[in-house]
């Protein structure tokens, strides 16, 4: 039997030193478990439910019905219609929000006086929930009690939700109101990081403000632009509150985008979880393809540094 010497103890201490502050996998377990059960397991459930008939009542278990729901998908005209409207809304959102957010972001990054106050005011929509914003706008565009009644010269007959194009425009406007401040904030942070030396060099070469914007600011913000557009596309594609509260998908399905169609199918009067799950799986696939596709297309994965050669 050997008595541990001082030297032995110190070796052990050194071993301990290596391990102290090195947490094991157990530390990650609670969060991972949580995430797996409530976020990943539902993905698997969506696939399972898409092959069943179920109405969301606890006592009536889902009944397997094979490919019935998927067969319905192929012949349901509501799906291509909803998909088309989703694409229209995404395009509307990107083409309206990007230029405005970009210009405001670059402007607020500049040296103007009072910029901080203005930036703080832009922040207001970010304090409101999508539901609160939708309720606010639905009151504002009310044909009898809202702005159309007060300003007939501007709003005509005042029924802004009467046709599909004008209802889509209303939804796109509310989304812009809600999200432009957020995207401006991203652009502002990125624009501040552009090295001033680039502008100084351009000014010496005689480039004006507009030329500087297109030759320096825009290329320098390339990566931010990509991030912002990806967030916009996926966010708009899964827009929900705004449509439920303002248009209810109407007029006659004129604003029923795919995400809303899924909700109505699953939680509307029919409570068809099976078919709603088919739409959910389609939505998940499309969202994934969009994200991956945009990443590939734009080279986001091998994100080029914008400061090479400086």
């Amino acid at each position, binding site marked *: 039997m050997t008595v541990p010497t001082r030297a032995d103890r110190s070796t052990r201490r050194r071993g301990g030193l290596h391990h102290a502050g090195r947490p094991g996998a157990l530390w990650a377990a609670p969060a991972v478990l949580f995430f797996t059960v409530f976020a990943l397991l539902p993905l698997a459930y969506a696939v399972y439910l898409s092959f069943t008939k179920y109405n969301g009542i606890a006592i009536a278990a889902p009944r397997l019905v094979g490919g019935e729901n998927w067969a319905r998908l192929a012949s349901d005209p509501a799906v291509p219609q909803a998909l088309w409207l989703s694409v229209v809304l995404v395009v509307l959102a990107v083409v309206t929000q990007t230029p405005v957010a970009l210009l405001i972001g670059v402007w607020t990054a500049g040296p103007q006086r009072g910029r901080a106050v203005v930036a703080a005011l832009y922040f207001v929509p970010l304090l*409101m929930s999508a539901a609160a914003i939708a309720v606010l706008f639905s009151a504002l565009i009310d044909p009898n*009690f809202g702005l159309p009644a007060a300003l007939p010269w501007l709003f005509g007959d005042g029924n802004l939700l009467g046709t599909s194009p004008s209802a889509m425009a209303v939804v796109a406007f509310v989304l812009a109101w809600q999200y432009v401040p957020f995207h401006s904030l991203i652009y502002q942070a990125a624009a501040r990081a552009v090295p001033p030396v680039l*502008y100084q060099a351009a000014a010496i070469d005689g480039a004006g403000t507009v030329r500087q914007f297109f030759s320096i600011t825009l290329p320098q913000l390339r990566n931010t632009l990509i991030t912002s557009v990806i967030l916009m596309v996926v966010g708009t594609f899964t827009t929900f509150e705004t449509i439920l509260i303002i248009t209810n998908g109407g007029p006659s399905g004129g604003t029923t985008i795919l995400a809303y169609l899924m909700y109505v199918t699953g939680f509307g009067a029919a409570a068809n*979880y099976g078919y709603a799950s088919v739409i959910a799986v389609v939505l998940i696939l499309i969202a994934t393809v969009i994200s991956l596709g945009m990443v590939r297309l734009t080279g986001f994965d091998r994100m080029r540094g914008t400061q090479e050669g400086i």
Partner: protein
Amino acid sequence: MRTRPNVIGGVVAAVWLAIVLIPVLLMLRAAFDTQAGYAQNGPLALPRTLTLENFVAAIDGGFLRNLANSAIITAGTVGLVLLVVPPLSFAIVRSTSRTVANAFRLMLLGLAIPAQVVVVPVSYLIIQLGLNNSLLGVILPTTAFAIPVCTLVLTGAMRNIGDELYEAMAIDGASTMRIYTRMVLPLSKGGLATVIVFAALQAWNGFLLPLVLARSPEVTVATVALNQFRSQYSVNIPGLMAAVVLTIIPILLVYLFARRALVAGVMGMGGK
């Protein structure tokens, strides 16, 4: 340094500022007007009298209960997030385990799943667990969908703690748990504040999960109640606007006291 002012940017910024502020001002104007005054003068005219009666009516009508439900869901979500996310972030930053590295990849994957698209199966899961129409049934999935971004934010904050600090603690004989509670947590206060604000915003402003999972009146949250008011009392716009204002006040208080953490939290929220 730019020598000439950015005129186009300035004009767009000014126009958009008006677009942002006019609806907010109209909302406040309506919320403090009487119902009769609003009907008479319309949404644009200055109100003759200012009144708090809409707020009183909203509270008397049971809106306080909805606000309390939202508050419970917010507190529960923040509590659970604080319980599970910091140990995970600590493990991601410091662990040498391969399992933990894979857990981090899993979280990155989770960033791409919007809660909206899995609401049908989540509702099935909550029914299976017998948690539908309970606040807990909303808290659990809300927490799960907040975990990825919160982990990303906190991992970033914890990476800033230098190796030499860990070594110093280890030389003093501190255990991993002691290093975590005495050093890692206090030094990531900024990141924790952002995580709290982010999780709270996500829970307080949540709509689809509570709409689907908590349908009975006693568990209805404020955002869902707003939509119910809108369909029931579409004539009473001042009352409706007062309820909207009531849902914003708590966030406004956070904004006044923790602006930096709130901005970071909103940035972390992405396009959601």
